[in-house]
């Protein structure tokens, strides 16, 4: 019958009724509303003036910032530095290609019915790092070499977060399997590894990677600073990843393990064909969340002297040529991070809801 498929009628209430219910339902709610409303009104005006109305957008150097508001032209002037660091300008198309490929493989993930979005995502996880490995540093196929010390800005932030997550996925999976293993020594080793890395702050890990790693390696073998930071981040992140994946492994009903064993599958076939595909699907939101926190944590590399996006902005706001632009610089970086993190977290929330309903039977 037609009626049964109709949606419940929406309750319509007027704005006055709505306000009375939601803003002025009691005397203390009224006071609260007035107080918060007053604070918002008094702060929004000056903020709007500073951000837009009195702000300076045109010009080329600090002397053009004459208005009382924000000095946005400094962002404009240094944008290339904030995105590419010291990467040579004539070679930046290589980075642009990587940005494009990154967007191409992950942006469709937000669109439900995009054709072949799974394949694009798979390319993003496997093919993209390989392309980037050759394209960004160059030195092969006739591409001019660009030292990693010249990388910086947003590009470096993305590289750190991206490689950190891609490399920590397989290591984290192995650690999670090890922690669930029935062999006591393997389990013990994995537990110690995971708990030690999770207990120490990322800064100490980065310090260790930059100071102690050269001591650990045999003489004559050394990595660049960026590679050392990446090793530290990967080890640290894989401990967190292991805990996320372990959550997924524990959520798989025992029957699945037993059924796989009953079919005569060995350990790796059981895990690889039956358990992990289900477990990893379950923890995609968790993986996305660790990615968000890793993405924010990559800013710490500026402490060991790498120029990520915050590092480039920080070096500009302390530059005598641009004075009193600290707030503008920080707002710019905050906005960049906020857009990325908020977007991704919304995506993960959607995913969570979708996966959740899929498993409710």
């Amino acid at each position: 019958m037609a009626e049964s498929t109709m949606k419940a009628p929406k309750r319509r209430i007027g704005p006055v009724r709505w306000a009375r219910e939601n803003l002025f339902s009691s005397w203390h709610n009224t006071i609260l509303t007035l107080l918060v409303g007053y604070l918002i009104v008094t702060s929004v005006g000056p903020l709007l003036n500073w951000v837009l109305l009195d702000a300076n957008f045109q010009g080329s150097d600090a002397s053009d910032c004459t208005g009382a508001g924000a000095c946005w032209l400094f962002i404009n002037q240094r944008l290339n530095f904030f995105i590419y660091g010291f990467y040579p300008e004539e070679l930046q198309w290589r980075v642009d290609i990587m940005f494009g490929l990154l967007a191409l493989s992950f942006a469709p993930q937000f669109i439900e019915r995009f054709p072949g979005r799974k394949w694009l995502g798979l390319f993003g996880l496997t093919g993209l790092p390989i392309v980037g490995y050759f394209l960004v540093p160059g030195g092969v196929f006739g591409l001019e070499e660009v030292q990693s010390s010249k990388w910086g800005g947003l590009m470096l932030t993305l590289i750190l977060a991206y490689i950190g997550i891609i490399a920590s996925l397989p290591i984290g999976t192995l650690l999670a399997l090890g922690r669930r293993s029935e062999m006591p020594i393997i389990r013990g080793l994995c537990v110690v590894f995971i708990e030690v890395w999770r207990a120490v702050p990322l800064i100490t890990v980065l310090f260790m990677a930059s100071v102690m790693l050269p001591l650990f390696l045999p003489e004559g073998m050394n990595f660049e600073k960026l590679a050392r930071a990446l090793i530290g981040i990967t080890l640290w992140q894989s401990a967190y990843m292991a805990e996320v994946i372990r959550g997924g492994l524990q959520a798989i009903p025992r029957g699945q393990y037993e059924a796989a064993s009953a079919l005569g599958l060995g350990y790796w076939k059981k895990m690889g064909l039956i358990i992990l595909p289900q477990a990893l699907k379950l923890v995609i939101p968790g993986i996305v969340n660790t990615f968000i926190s890793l993405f924010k944590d990559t800013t710490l590399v500026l402490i060991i002297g790498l120029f990520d996006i915050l590092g480039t902005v920080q070096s500009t706001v302390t530059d005598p040529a641009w004075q009193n632009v600290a707030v503008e610089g920080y707002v710019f970086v905050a906005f960049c991070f906020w857009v990325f993190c908020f977007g991704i977290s919304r995506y993960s929330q959607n995913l969570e809801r979708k996966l959740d309903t899929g498993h409710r039977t």
Partner: protein
Amino acid sequence: MKKQTFDSKPAGPKPWYDPRVRAIFFQVVAIALVFWGGWVLIDNTLSNMESRGISTGFGFLDESAGFGIIMSLVPYDATMSYGRTFWVGLTNTLLVSAMGVVTATILGFIIGVARLSSNWLVAKVSLAYIEVIRNIPLLLQIFFWYFAVLSSLPSPRQSVDVGGAFFLNNRGLYVPEPVTQDGFGLVWGGVFAAIAAVIGIRIWAKRRQLATGAIFPTFKVGVGVLVLVPVMSYLLAGQPLEWDLPALKGFNFGGGISIIPELAALWIALSLYTASFIAEIVRSGILSVSKGQTEASKALGLPNGLTLRLVVIPQAMRVIIPPLTSQYLNLVKNSSLATAIGYPDLVAVFMGTTLNQTGQAVEVVAITMAVYLTISLLISLFMNIYNRAVAIKER
């Protein structure tokens, strides 16, 4: 009917197909690999340190440090040892962590409850706060407070002066320092007596309630005792307290307690950032208590305040505690970002300056990591004990 019996171990498969044999084999291989890796690392490290002329051992802890530290809770000057710098750094880390945990918890609970407020405006403002703050890197927030807000405060000569007692400038916040005089022991006695009395009243009130059902206003009486007894003993002892007021001496302030801007920036940023996560934890905890519980308690005739205190909060806490613990751990670990703005915490002082001066990376990094490991384990231990106390007791 004859039952068919199986041997516990069929004779068929070859030993290398036996899972138990395999398990032993893999574990022996794993141990061998770990030992081999460890040996290679130690060997490399020793030969590298020898070739670079770095000495080993913990003897450096007794050597004189020779550098100043801008803030220390334990007495410190540049002639003291590297071991002393460790304690200075550790106490500074613990100080900012403790301050951060307290304010982040209070703020987080307020925002988390406000997020669920029936007042639309309050709920939306809290939502905006949470979504903005937690999606911006903590280091950036620390920089913002330190470089953009606190360093733009006026210089010491143009300090913001509140009543001649509090001064705020770009060198920090200066507050009067209480200096206890003779006879202050009586006030301490009063404080402890009041605390003991309140505990006694609480036990007695609970017993009486169990026996007779009559409710004693423990909270109001307790607050009264806690305020009145110390004040009375303070007056009785002849007001044995003087205030050391901060005053401008030369280019800077002397006297009083100063909160340096590094500490303030770190504290504010840590509190605000962690509060946004705690708020979400509190919200999910409160939402996890089913509506039937509230309704049942209302049906029993409990007023709103008691419903919240006796029914909702105890159940919500069970959901809140485990993630709250990990937020506290995060806060302690995040306090190491101090090194970026020069607050002398453990990482900045010990892993920074001391490591640079002595070059003994292995020992210093090992000690620092051990400290964080210990703090983490201790916090989880205490929270686990507390969690066990509030967990559901199946009867």
